[in-house]
Every structure is written in C-alpha cells, then in structure tokens.
C-alpha cells in the first residue's frame, strides 16, 4: 500500500499536477460561476459525452444554446496566471489539465478551441489557483450547498 501511495505521488509530481499536500486528489481551481445544478460528480463523469453530443448540435444544426459548450467551460473555469491573464492549457494549472494530467487522459479539444476566454472577454476578477485555504474553503462551501 505504501509503495502504491509513493508511486502515485511521484507520478503526480512528474506530470506536474498540483497535489494537495494532505491528499492525493488533484487541486482543481474554483470556478467563477454558479455551481452546476446537476452536481460536480455528474459533470465529472458525463462531460465527455455531453460535449460530444452538443458539438454535433452546434456544428451540424447551428444550435448554439447548449449545455456542453467549451467556450462557456473555459470562461467559467478560467484561472488567473502570473501575468493576470487567464492561464492557457499550456499550464499544468489550467482547470482542465489539473484533472486530465492526474488521470493521464489527453485533451484534444484545444488543438482547435481556445483554452481561455479571448482577450477582451477576460473576467475582471479571476480566481487565483485553488491553493489558498480561503478560496478552497469558499469553493467547498459553495459546492456543498
């Protein structure tokens, strides 16, 4: 058990995934908007299916008001980088990457989609990385409501 623990920790460190000091979970930054009404667990499991279902609605039928829109995802899950601009997926601390690096699942979306809101649409206040105890606490408060 101990070896497994150590190797998981080492893996996470190698991949650059920020790891909570006390846990083995990825440090997912808090999002800007209201929590998902369906719950985080639902979206964690179902986001790939919803995204691929809804992309066909948009691309083929021009339906833009969809539940799984990458543009909306990256706007709400934007995280402040060192230069006060939202982080791109080039950073391991990008909201998508924190989890995807941890689970070793490659993201293809951002080969074509912008991984952050485009300049001009940057939110005035960006959540900083989920590292501070206050932000984490506030986030946990919100999602537990």
């Amino acid at each position, binding site marked *: 058990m101990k070896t497994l623990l150590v190797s998981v920790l080492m893996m996470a460190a190698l991949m650059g995934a920020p790891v909570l000091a006390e846990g083995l979970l990825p440090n997912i930054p808090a999002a800007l908007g209201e929590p998902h009404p369906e719950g985080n667990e*639902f979206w964690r499991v179902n986001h790939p299916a919803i995204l691929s279902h809804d992309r066909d609605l948009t691309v083929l039928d*021009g339906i*833009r008001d969809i539940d799984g829109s990458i543009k909306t995802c990256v706007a709400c899950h934007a995280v402040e980088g060192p230069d006060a601009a939202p982080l791109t997926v080039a950073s391991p601390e990008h909201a998508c990457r924190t989890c995807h690096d941890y689970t070793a699942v490659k993201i293809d979306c951002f080969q074509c*989609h*912008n991984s952050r809101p485009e300049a001009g649409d940057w939110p005035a206040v960006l959540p900083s990385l989920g590292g501070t105890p206050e932000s984490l606490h506030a986030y946990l408060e919100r999602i537990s409501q």
Partner: protein
Amino acid sequence: MIIPTKEKGADISRRDLLKSGGAMATVTLASGVTLMSFGGKAAADGLKPGARWGLLIDAGKCPEDCSACVSACSKEHGWEDNGLDTDPQWIRKVTLREKETGRENSLPVMCQHCDEPPCVDVCPTGASFKREDGIVLVNRHTCIGCRYCMMACPFKARSFVHEPVTDQRTDSPRGNGTVEGCNMCVHKIDRGDGTTACVEACQATGNNAMMFGDLNDPESDIAIAVSTYASVELRADLGLNLGVRYQNI
C-alpha cells in the same frame, strides 16, 4: 451526387425533439440524475429551415486596391496570411483579365458554397458537409486532414492548417492538421446578425460591392437583386449551383 436537402419539420428530427419542450422537459442521463435544462431552451435556436444563404458581389464596385473584406475575414476568424505558400486564405482578391480586350476586373473569391459541392463528394469521413441552409463547412471533429477536398474544389477555396494554432477566436475554432475555408460567418448567422464580416467591412468602406442574404426568401434584398439584374456564377459550366454570384465580370 445530389445532396438531398431535407425540409425541417417534414419528420421529427433530433432538433424538433429538443425544441418541443414538453417532449423532453426532463432527460434522464444517468441513473438517478436528470438534466432539466434541455427542453424548450433550444427554441428559436439553430439554423433557419429552408434558407439558402448567399452572397452577391458586384465586381464593378470593387476597386483593385481595396481588400477590406479580406482583412475583416482574417480578423473575424483569426487566420493570418503572411505571404507564405502554406498560409491559409479563406478569401482572396483576384484579378480577372479578358484576353481579347485587356479589360481587368478585381473581385473577392471565397468558398462559393456550392449546392452540389465537390468537396463533400470526395470527403472520405463526412467531415466536409453542407448544412441544411446551404452553408458548406468542415467539421473539424471528423476531418482527418487528407486534403482531398482541397484537390476537388474548383475555386481553391480551402486551406490546410500547417502550424499549431493557439488563442483562436472563440467563435471560430481552427487547428493544425485540419482543412478550413469560408464558413459564411456561420456563428454570426446563427446568432441572427444577418450579415457577414466581409459584407460589413465592404459596406463600411462605402463601396457596397457585397450583399448577403437568403436566396430562397423572395422578399430578401439579395433574391430581389438576382431576379432583377444579371448575375453569373464562376465556372457556371460545372453546374454546381453556387451560393455566391457575381455581377459585372
């Protein structure tokens, strides 16, 4: 091959199901979890059934030294032509010269949104497709970058993206390894702007050489214009029934 255009509403399509709020107000997506937001939300969203979007370009009003439409397209969609052979061109200014008389014409050429598009015929994956409102697009989710469509297009309207792209326009995703071309500002059409970036820019210059509209709507300016004044298709001999028409060439 004739691409059948299915009348929306003739049968119950996926979109009709989504539109009819009652039918799908509650969707069970996983055991014990329901997503309530689908039904009714998509009403009035989506492409206009029965439309055929098109452009009418008056070469007589298009000065040779103007390329406002090209710059506007580049800005709207985030592509850049820096003069390299491999740089994308969604729209370009072309000069036509009549051999016998020497008369020259300058005009913008982009994807002509063929009614019977050769690019769709040859695409092995179905990524190249025609929307029901006549706009021909590349579905980059399924494009494998084989570039058959580029070979098939009589107008050299498509480009291959050779380099990785970052910081794309969020309304116009584009990326390395896929093919792209004029999408008639489909994001603007879907949100009801009723115009394209090139047409807006052309009007802003005062040249008014371009007009956008629904060719199938007899009341639209473009339908009235094409039924009143002479206009031609490029390479009409191919019989592709183009969505872009030209005057004074």
